[in-house]
């Protein structure tokens, strides 16, 4: 019986997607590799075999998986998020989660689809986080506006009332007007019954003048 040959590696040590170690990520910039075309079937098959071997514990399959998936994940995130920095963050997070769960990969799954699942999840998380942050900023701005003072409508009403009150006050006798001014300014003589009586009469006359000018609630 012929002696069995040692098991040959079915996957290449080259990048399954690009034929060379990944160069897509270059410290903050993207080169053309990350925006290349779709993964061809042969490379996809090699990636599948390498991922299966890695899930089994074959450490020599690590680099081919890394080199094959990183540019694909980065490209996917960039297309999904339309922002280079956010895309890099999301792709990094997806890659870390992918390798953290690499042992749970089953050969009957599609390796590329499995990896893109992580990337899609990270992109959605990043997008939701951005939306939440924007909503929080909007709310903060609105609260700041509301707390800054009265609205333009209130200011207008206040100005109208002030001018009307001054107009009516001006129609009173000078003594009554002076008494009301002193009371509003808080300069009334302490414990003076004469001033209290004078103020009472002045306010009564002011009320009558207001009713004559602007009408009453009744």
């Amino acid at each position, binding site marked *: *019986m012929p*002696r069995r040959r040692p*098991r040959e590696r079915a996957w290449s040590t080259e990048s399954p997607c690009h034929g060379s170690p*990944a*160069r*897509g*990520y*270059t*410290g*903050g910039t993207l080169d053309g590799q990350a925006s290349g075309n779709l993964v061809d079937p042969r490379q996809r098959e090699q990636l599948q075999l390498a991922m299966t071997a*890695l*899930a*089994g*514990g*074959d450490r020599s399959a*690590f*680099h081919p998986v*890394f080199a094959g998936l*990183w540019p694909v994940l980065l490209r996917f995130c960039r297309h999904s998020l339309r922002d280079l920095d956010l895309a*890099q*963050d999301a792709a*990094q*997070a997806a*890659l*870390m*989660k992918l*390798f*953290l*769960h*690499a*042992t*749970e990969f089953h050969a009957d799954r599609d390796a590329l689809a499995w990896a893109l699942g992580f990337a899609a999840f990270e992109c959605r998380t990043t997008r939701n986080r951005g939306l939440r942050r924007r909503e929080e900023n909007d709310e903060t701005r609105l609260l700041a506006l509301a707390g800054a003072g009265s609205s333009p409508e209130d200011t207008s009403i206040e100005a109208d009332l002030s001018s009307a009150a001054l107009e009516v006050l001006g129609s009173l006798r000078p003594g009554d007007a002076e008494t009301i001014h002193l009371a509003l300014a808080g300069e009334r003589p302490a414990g003076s019954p004469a001033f209290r009586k004078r103020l009472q009469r002045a306010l009564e006359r002011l009320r009558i003048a207001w009713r004559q000018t602007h009408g009453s609630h009744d």
Partner: protein
Amino acid sequence: MVPMTEARLERRARWAYELGRAAWASHALLLVLPLLLVARWVGRPSGLVFILGGAVATIAFGGAMVHRRYSRAVLAGVLASLPAFALPVIIRSLGIVRLVPRTLDPCIPASIVAGILAGAYLAARTVAEKHRPSYWLVAALVAAPLGTLGCSVVGGAGVIGLVAGLAVGTLPLVLRTEMRRS
């Protein structure tokens, strides 16, 4: 996230992979630890349980960490050790039986039989694997100490019986492999 070079990213990814692998390998302990608790519960000496259990737990975790085939070997080893673990304890609890004019402790033949069963089971499982020697070694390194926890109720004779049975049970595998080579 801080921008990083691809080499650094690969290093981090490798760490993530090893961390995930360790988490996955820790499941192997779920097979071993209950048996050690049972061994203590049936009254096996704590020193013996600690030493043999520690060795088995280390082998089981390390094996599962290294490769998935060794986690299968750990499972096979645990299953193979069950008769050797349980039979002598069960028979001992039944007491000494009189078979011949002299009294005979049935735990010794039970250990041998349990060893043969374990060896045969391991041989059957090993045949289906590609990396047979390493697979068998890991499985036997798990089965033997766990079986010893049961067989040692009759002392050294039980352990020798287990090891002899394990060797006899594995013999068909060795013979078959040799015949294929020749």
